[in-house]
């Protein structure tokens, strides 16, 4: 770089240092260094996951290293300034190299070196010398004819006392060199065009501001919006069925930019086909392109691997997601089970407010799936569809939220049917599932009736009183009885509202360490008998309690119910949300790109492929026949060289030599053999 430091008034060193600069730029060492350096940089970019949300990086590296790495641009290596500089250097270096080598290469292709001296020919690794009958011009002409017949381009020149015939083949090999390296330059140029440096620059200079808040498209400020004249970009947009978009989002580091399009894309329909195994088989989007310049909207269906190219904008099927499916949900209060369920109408990505005894809640619908295909328990090869499911969050006033995954249809486990609802506090942890048993007619009625009675103090009190004999020692006086009844009623209420957690809490509060287990057991026996008899009454009312007593299924139902009650304590929601109805709306994730440099790059690629094959599979070979008067007429000196594969050229040379000798009517060979030896 010394070249730039010179002042105009010192021309000589300037010229020389300019030469040094060119020398340096075109040097093989720089080339190799660059190839290696770029490889290393590229490796960094693959080992460190690129363009992740910045908080993730902070978590991974800690604030200090996060800062350092961000300065180094390691979160987006491939558009980091220093990386682009490396590529630029490679471009320059290759260009300079081509510039410096082209003349020699072209000369190599054209010039036959007819003035070559005999003594330099004798220095060749491949050479032979012999005597031939006939005068020099005749022999020279014959030799030339032979070489031509063997596919060589031939020139001849008569010097004072000798005639030199020069032949050359495979000079396209040199062309190969040119093609390969010009190709590198061309490809780099194309890449730079698509790399859209002006945009990167004005973004670095702050003329364009990367938006990091997540805003809807229509609220994005102009300084984060790019006009349709932006030549090169690659962005993505999510369009729900029936929706339209005339923009895409470009991800930039930890934020994005909004890129306007000169047309509107409408998603008419999106389809996913599945293989029997539930794996996706194809994604297809039926698109309508609305463009003022079109007589009527352009209809086209794109799929993975089948993009639509419109006006140089390529529209690709990239992903899919829910497009805001409309949902009808029955919310049942777990605190006041006797209340009628509340019908909620909402949609994915929408929020609803619900008022509950525990205060207002926000229902945030997050996702909907029409199918949930899993390997079936019976045998892993077959698959069962667990039907529609909805994911939503319930957020309280304090802003704390629990996430729920509820299946619409009852799930069957070991032949019994349950309403299944998973819950978790953070997406990081797995769902914990609540199984509520379904009654004979596939509803939750029986469960909720029982629950409402268990939560109804008066009902419980009556039951306890009725079966007091069994529970309370007969000899105890009225006061103690009342007290005991109260505490049992309290216990049942506690369990009903707070589930197993509350029970445990109670025990830990009231009972000394030593006899907690035993206390727990007695609590549970009491609960079972009380809730049991409430359940028996219910069965009687349902008229399913015959002489033969409680049926297998009903007994099972009771156990499941108790389990559900126990679990409800930590369910974290006063509402049980049952998906009642839905209208599935899908959204298609489109990627829209504009790459004017693409064809330049492809041109470069073609040159590269051709060039490499030329270079490897066309060998540039030169041979000379120098004929001078000799004792039997003419002395023939034959020598040659190839720029690849010694062994191969050696065999060819020997073949040529034999042909030449027969053609020049010579049998015995002089000099050649020991000459061959001497240079081994």
């Amino acid at each position, binding site marked *: 770089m010394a070249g730039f430091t010179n002042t105009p008034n010192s021309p000589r060193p300037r010229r020389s240092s300019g030469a040094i600069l060119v020398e340096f730029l075109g040097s*093989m060492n720089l*080339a*190799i260094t660059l*190839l*290696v350096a*770029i*490889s290393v940089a*590229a*490796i960094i*970019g*693959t*080992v460190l*996951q*690129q363009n992740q949300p910045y908080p993730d990086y902070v978590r991974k590296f800690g604030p200090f290293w996060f800062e350092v790495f961000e300065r180094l641009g390691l979160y987006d290596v*491939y558009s980091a300034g220093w990386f682009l500089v490396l590529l630029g250097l490679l471009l320059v270096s290759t260009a300079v190299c081509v510039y410096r080598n082209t003349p020699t290469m072209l000369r190599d292709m054209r010039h036959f070196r007819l003035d070559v001296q005999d003594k330099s020919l004798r220095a060749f690794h491949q050479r032979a010398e012999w005597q031939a009958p006939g005068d020099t011009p005749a022999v020279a002409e*014959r030799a030339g*004819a*032979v070489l031509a*017949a*063997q*596919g060589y381009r031939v020139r001849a020149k008569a010097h004072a006392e000798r005639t030199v015939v020069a032949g050359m083949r495979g000079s396209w090999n040199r062309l190969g060199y040119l093609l390969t390296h010009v190709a590198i330059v061309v490809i780099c140029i194309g*890449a730079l065009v698509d790399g859209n440096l002006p945009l990167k620059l004005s973004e670095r200079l702050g003329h364009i501001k990367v938006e990091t808040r997540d805003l809807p498209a229509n609220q994005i400020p102009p300084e984060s919006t790019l006009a349709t004249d932006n030549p090169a970009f*690659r962005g993505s947009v999510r369009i729900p069925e029936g929706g339209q978009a005339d923009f895409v989002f470009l991800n930039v580091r930890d934020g994005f930019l909004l890129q306007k399009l000169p047309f509107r894309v409408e998603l008419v329909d999106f389809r996913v086909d599945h*293989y029997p*195994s539930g*794996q*996706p*088989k*194809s*994604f297809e989007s039926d698109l309508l392109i609305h463009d003022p310049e079109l007589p009527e909207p352009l209809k086209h269906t794109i*799929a*993975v*691997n*089948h*993009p639509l190219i419109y006006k140089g904008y*390529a529209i*690709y099927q*990239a992903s899919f997601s829910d497009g805001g499916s409309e949902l009808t949900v029955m919310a049942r209060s777990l605190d006041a089970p006797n209340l009628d369920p509340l019908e909620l109408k909402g949609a994915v990505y929408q929020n609803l407010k619900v008022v509950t005894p525990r205060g207002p809640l926000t229902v945030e619908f997050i996702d909907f799936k029409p199918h949930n295909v899993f390997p079936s328990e019976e045998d892993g090869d077959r698959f069962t569809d667990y039907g529609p499911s909805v994911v939503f969050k319930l957020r309280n006033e304090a802003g704390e939220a629990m996430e729920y995954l509820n299946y619409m249809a009852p799930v069957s486990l070991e032949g019994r049917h349950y309403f299944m609802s998973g819950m978790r506090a953070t997406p990081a942890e797995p769902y914990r599932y609540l199984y509520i048993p379904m009654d004979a007619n596939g509803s939750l009625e029986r469960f909720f009736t029982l629950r409402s009675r268990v939560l109804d103090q008066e009902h419980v009190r009556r039951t306890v009183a009725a079966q007091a004999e069994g529970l309370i020692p007969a000899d105890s006086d009225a006061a103690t009885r009342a007290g005991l009844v109260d505490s049992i009623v309290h216990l049942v209420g506690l369990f009903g509202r707070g589930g197993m957690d509350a029970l445990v809490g109670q025990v830990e509060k009231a009972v000394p360490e030593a006899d907690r287990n035993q206390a727990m057991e007695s609590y549970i026996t009491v609960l079972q008998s009380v809730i049991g008899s409430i359940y028996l009454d219910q069965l009687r009312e349902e008229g399913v309690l015959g002489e033969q007593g409680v049926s297998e299924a009903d007994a099972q139902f009771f156990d499941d119910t108790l389990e559900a009650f126990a679990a409800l304590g930590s369910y974290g929601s006063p509402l049980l949300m049952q998906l009642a109805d839905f209208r599935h709306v899908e959204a298609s994730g489109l*990627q829209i*790109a504009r*790459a004017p440099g*693409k064809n330049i*790059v*492809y041109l470069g*690629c073609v040159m*590269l*492929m051709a060039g*490499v*094959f030329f270079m*490897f*599979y066309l060998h540039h070979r030169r041979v000379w026949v120098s004929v001078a008067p000799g004792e039997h007429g003419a002395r023939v000196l034959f020598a040659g060289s190839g720029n690849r594969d*010694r*062994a191969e050229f050696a065999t*060819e040379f020997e*073949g*040529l030599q*034999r*042909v030449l000798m*027969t*053609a020049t009517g010579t049998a015995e060979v002089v000099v050649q053999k020991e000459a061959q030896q001497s240079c081994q």
Partner: protein
Amino acid sequence: MSVTSEAMKDGLTRPAWWRRLGWFDWAWGALVVLASLYTSARYGALMDGFEMVILAGTVPVTLGLGWMWKAMRPYTLVVALLSLAAIALYGGELARGDSNFFLKYLLSSQSAIMWMSALFVMATAAYWLSLFMRSEFTGRVASALTWCASTMGFIGLMVRWRESYLIGPDVGHIPVSNLYEVFILFAVITGLMYLYYEGRYRSRAMGAFALTVISAAVAFLLWYTFEHQAHEIQPLVPALQSYWMKIHVPTNFVGYGGFALAAMLGIAYLIVDRLEPASVWATRLPTLAQLDDVMYKAIALGFAFFTVATVLGAMWAAEAWGGYWSWDPKETWALIVWLNYAAWLHMRLTKGWRGRPMAWWAIIGLFVTTFAFLGVNMFLSGLHSYGTL
């Protein structure tokens, strides 16, 4: 290209290349052309433009291979006939794979591939044995075994292709779609490449080294089969349902094959380099000059095809991911491999480096390549939707 006998009688008349083909060459040409004509006549109606182009393309390639490397003719014929036989035996019912004797024990893709594995391992052993025992005969056996292994492997792929369609028309696809399938491809291609150089240099001494890397691949293949049931034919994810895959992947594996071969020869080079020139072993093993030469040729071939493969990959990416270059880890590692060998070639061709450093570099190159081929799928996340172990 050496000079032919009639030319030597009189150097002035050098017949055009087509005059120098023997009748067997012409028979070969006729056979290939007729076969493709028959195919297009019989199945043309079912083929789309792309498939027609591929069919047309196979004619010159098969012809050229057969003319350039005579051994390709019997090989191609045997593979074709046995594959057709297998397809005929299946007769449209996958179940026959278990009932029919020949399918069950020889030609169903699974058994063909098992045969390939066994034969490659045996061949490796034979090559080493022939080195130690210095037995020409064992050497010939080893070559024969390698030929058979490559044949069975190729048949296995062909039949697997058919089987995938027997599972279901929408499941059917060319067997280059996951790690298991490409490992077979790798073994076959590397095997054939080695056999080519063996014929070209009339020396079996390189076999022990070349076959060792193939056996390693086979070992992985078997582990993968038994650990992960990888041999089960899976339907294609949408991203892979592209004709680009059909040319991109095989081209890539010519590259990988060349690089692997070069690395093994590099090892051989370093060994020979440490031996006394006069020692027994030095006389049994290939000469340094030959190793250096073949190493260059293998890398050159590999580099040329890898270049094409990478370009094809970019074109595919442009169609599937919306950009010809996304710096996806797999892509990036392909670039790294490519730059690495570009640097290697420069050192050899412009700086005239030879021998030890280049041998070491070729070996390291194989590690880089292996990471690009396996490591990326195992350790790095990316858009490439197949090959995760």
